[in-house]
């Protein structure tokens, strides 16, 4: 596990001392689908969320300016508050005596898509893993292409059995090498990277050749692109150039620069050898994303001119807040953000552990097709309590891809969108668990993003989180109904008091409830756990929860209770099989109550369709979903 530094190199939001005095702030989050703007102001000496507005992000071909969407969202706030914040398409600064205008404006952005980075050179599987860890908390999409000479010398040729396949274990003849060159050029053509990371210490059998081949590949790809550049004004006029991070053998950096002259701008970073270099590479890639993606968005300069600080990537802002919460409350916090193009799962531990997983190609809007492609039809339909044809699913996916801003029109569409959200989260989590052997259980799960925040019922949110994350033991679920948490990290960089007060008062205020998730070997229908609840008013309750079911025990918001768990001998509630657990402190209630999820881990759904539908409906009913 590694810890990424804060983007400004500081210690996080709480340490920042530069606090401008602002009575009012407008905070915009420009997502891939929607732009959300919030107005914060002082109410009786405390910063509070006063209003929020939402409008589609304007990066479509008919409205190529991100500030149009921001202004439209601000217009909604003007409509609600009766105050004026925009005049002649400019924000009015500072706040006037009549209440019009604001003192500060801050923006976060996840629009614009990921930075596509190709990892080249002597790419072994270990280094590929390190590189993907370095990119995991950023809006970056990574592909790796190991140099043919590195593959030829690093991969031992196993004895070939059966039919001859040139790619598997055969000798590296000239023909195979040229086929590999063609394949890699094809991969570059299909992936269209904007940046490259070149790695390799030149101490292997192939010497510096992998570095040389990495340069050749970039030169050839640039040449090909310049010859046949895509139409529609995508990259009209200027020749193709890459941004290259060179993390290879230091003695060859000048040679690499010379080879890539006119094709790439080479930025030297420390050679990638171990986890120690990941933070630096993360920061360098983050800077490249700002420069190559965010700063090139139409309207960026205008947006930037409204604020004293540069717009921050939403994932960076979210990570600041999640780490702050983990340290402040001394607990493990998982944040889940499901957006139109990006799904983020971040885990921050009380000891400073941090696992960020941002997948910029998986979402429930434009990227919903990717979820279907990766998860497959069956994994999507297993969450639906009704039969559905492949054509209906595909039609739904295409409509979402083309109109990502559209809200579900029927209860059936709500369930379809939530099925995709479950699989988007699950895909990101699966990738995270492959990369990080240790994945601590969470004490708190924070949920945000349109499909979660706008879900019609709180029970639906709880089910999505429990199904997709499959937590164990005891955890609390919190919903960011106002979609503010991902903006608060950015707010904290200029106004930490505002961030803390709004966080306490408004943003993380939809506490869904505490969840107890027993797990172990027990047959459905048998007792999994007996739950003893002692309410703060002295009332006592004992509930038997059977394996395969979900129960909700009444425990409303602002209510507390002491909890005692008596698991069956083979069932674990976090202290070992059969070990009784009694909470040292009272647990808090929530909008749903105390949830006991005894469906088992891993969660197994009935294979029979009718039975599965019945079970899904039963679980939904238990949670009021």
């Amino acid at each position: 596990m590694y810890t990424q530094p804060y983007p400004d190199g500081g210690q996080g939001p709480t340490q920042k001392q530069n606090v401008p005095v602002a009575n009012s702030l407008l905070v915009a989050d420009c997502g891939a689908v929607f732009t959300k703007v919030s107005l914060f102001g002082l109410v009786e000496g405390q910063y509070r969320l006063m209003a929020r507005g939402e409008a589609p992000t304007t990066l479509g071909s008919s409205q190529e300016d991100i500030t149009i969407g921001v202004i439209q969202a601000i217009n909604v706030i003007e409509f609600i508050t009766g105050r004026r914040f925009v005049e002649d398409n400019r924000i009015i600064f500072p706040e006037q005596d009549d209440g019009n205008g604001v003192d500060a404006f801050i923006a976060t952005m996840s629009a614009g898509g990921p930075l596509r980075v190709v990892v080249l050179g002597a790419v072994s599987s270990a280094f590929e893993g390190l590189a993907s860890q370095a990119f995991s908390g950023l809006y970056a999409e990574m592909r790796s292409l190991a140099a043919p000479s590195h593959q030829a010398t690093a991969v031992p040729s196993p004895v070939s059995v059966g039919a001859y396949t040139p790619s598997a274990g055969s000798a590296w003849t000239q023909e195979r090498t040229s086929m590999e060159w063609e394949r890699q050029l094809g991969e570059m053509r299909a992936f269209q990277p904007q940046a490259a990371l070149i790695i390799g210490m030149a101490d292997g059998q192939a010497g510096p050749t992998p570095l040389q081949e990495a340069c050749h590949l970039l030169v050839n790809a640039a040449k090909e692109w310049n010859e046949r550049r895509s139409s529609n004004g995508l990259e009209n006029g200027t020749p193709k150039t890459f941004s290259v991070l060179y993390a290879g053998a230091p003695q060859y950096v000048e040679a690499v620069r010379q080879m890539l002259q006119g094709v790439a701008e080479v930025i030297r970073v420390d050679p990638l050898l171990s986890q120690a270099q990941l933070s630096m590479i993360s920061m360098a890639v983050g800077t490249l994303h700002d420069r190559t993606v965010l700063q090139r968005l139409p309207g960026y300069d205008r947006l930037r001119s409204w604020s004293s600080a540069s717009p921050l990537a939403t994932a960076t802002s979210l990570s600041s807040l999640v780490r702050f919460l983990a340290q402040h409350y001394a607990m493990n916090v998982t944040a889940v953000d499901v957006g139109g193009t990006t799904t983020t799962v971040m885990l921050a531990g009380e000891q400073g552990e941090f696992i960020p997983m941002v997948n910029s190609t998986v979402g429930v809007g434009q990227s919903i097709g990717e979820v279907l492609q990766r998860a497959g039809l069956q994994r999507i339909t297993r969450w639906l309590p009704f039969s559905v044809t492949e054509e209906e699913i595909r039609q739904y996916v295409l409509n979402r891809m083309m109109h990502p801003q559209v809200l579900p029109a029927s209860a059936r569409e709500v369930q379809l969108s939530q099925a995709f959200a479950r699989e988007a989260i699950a895909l990101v989590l699966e990738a995270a668990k492959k990369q990080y052997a240790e994945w601590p259980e969470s004490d708190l799960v924070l949920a945000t993003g349109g499909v979660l925040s706008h879900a019609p019922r709180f029970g639906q949110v709880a089910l999505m989180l429990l199904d997709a994350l499959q937590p164990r033991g005891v955890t609390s679920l919190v919903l960011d109904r106002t979609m503010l948490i991902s903006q608060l990290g950015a707010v904290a960089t200029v106004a930490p008091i505002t961030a803390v007060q709004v966080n306490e008062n408004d943003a993380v205020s939809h506490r869904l409830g505490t969840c107890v998730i027993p797990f172990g070997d027990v047959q459905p229908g048998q007792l999994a756990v007996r739950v003893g609840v002692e309410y703060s008013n002295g009332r006592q309750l004992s509930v038997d929860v059977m394996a395969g079911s979900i129960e909700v025990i009444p425990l409303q918001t602002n209510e507390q209770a002491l909890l005692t768990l008596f698991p069956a001998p083979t069932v674990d509630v976090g202290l070992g099989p059969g070990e009784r657990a009694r909470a040292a402190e009272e647990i808090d209630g929530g909008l749903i109550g105390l949830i006991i999820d005894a469906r088992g881990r891993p969660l197994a759904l009935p294979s029979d369709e009718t039975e599965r539908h019945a079970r899904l409906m039963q679980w939904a009913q238990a949670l009021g979903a």
Partner: protein
Amino acid sequence: MRRERWPDGYGVKAVPLVYPGQEVLPDQPVLRFPATKQTDTGSGEVVPAGLRGRVVEISPRGGVVIESPAALVQGVIGAGKQIAGILTLWREKAGKQQKIPAGAILVVPDQINFALLHRAMSSGVSGIVAGSISLRDLEGFLRVDLIQLLNCADVDLVQAHLPPLTLLFTEGLGAIAMSRQVTELLEHYQGSIALLCGATSVRHRIFPELVISLPAEETQQNWQSVQPEAVLVPGALVQIYEGEHRGTVGTIDYVFTYQQVFASGIHARAVRVALEDGTWLTVPIIYVKRLL
């Protein structure tokens, strides 16, 4: 507006036949591609401008960028390379088969089907602008997985492998006719040469479009360009593009201050739309797009 005249998918450099600053007419050749096995005409293929206007730039690959006062119809989904052709309205009459002119851009105001697409292609039609099409018919005709097509990174490469018929659907997938306003616009310019590009990419935010240069007589005196208005205010003519009333056109009658609850349980900002038949509909504000 400015558009680069470049029929996608050739993968070679073209020879421009015009120079920056030159005025061009829609049927005037502006590019020549060298002869290939595919074109096999001996002297190569000549590409007409498709637009009436002024050449402002020659792009590095040899494409000709033309500035032209024009009307633009943006589609929801499409496919195929950029082509120029004569706008021809398709009117199917009972018992009478309309002759389909070769090289034309056929306008089909309603839903189109697989059979008509094939008939059009075999008649030598260059492009089709239609209201909508079913998913099955479109995938069957293109012989591709549409989800993969829309997600593909290399737009040029994909277009090169599609059937030689450029498509644009104003309403997208389903069985919806194009709005009366769009049909009237296309009727008005019937017989004009237009430029049609079907390329659609969700990844690159590219949508299909039909560009029709305005005739000289329409742009001579006191002509001012009209940009589409996006703000949804009472009195705005809008089309509902999602939900059970998809395709319906009406006028915004009221913009709700508070969020409304809809059948799906979703809370959303809403507008009340007065329909042409005198009834009203309350729909999420996000379901409507402004026509006028």
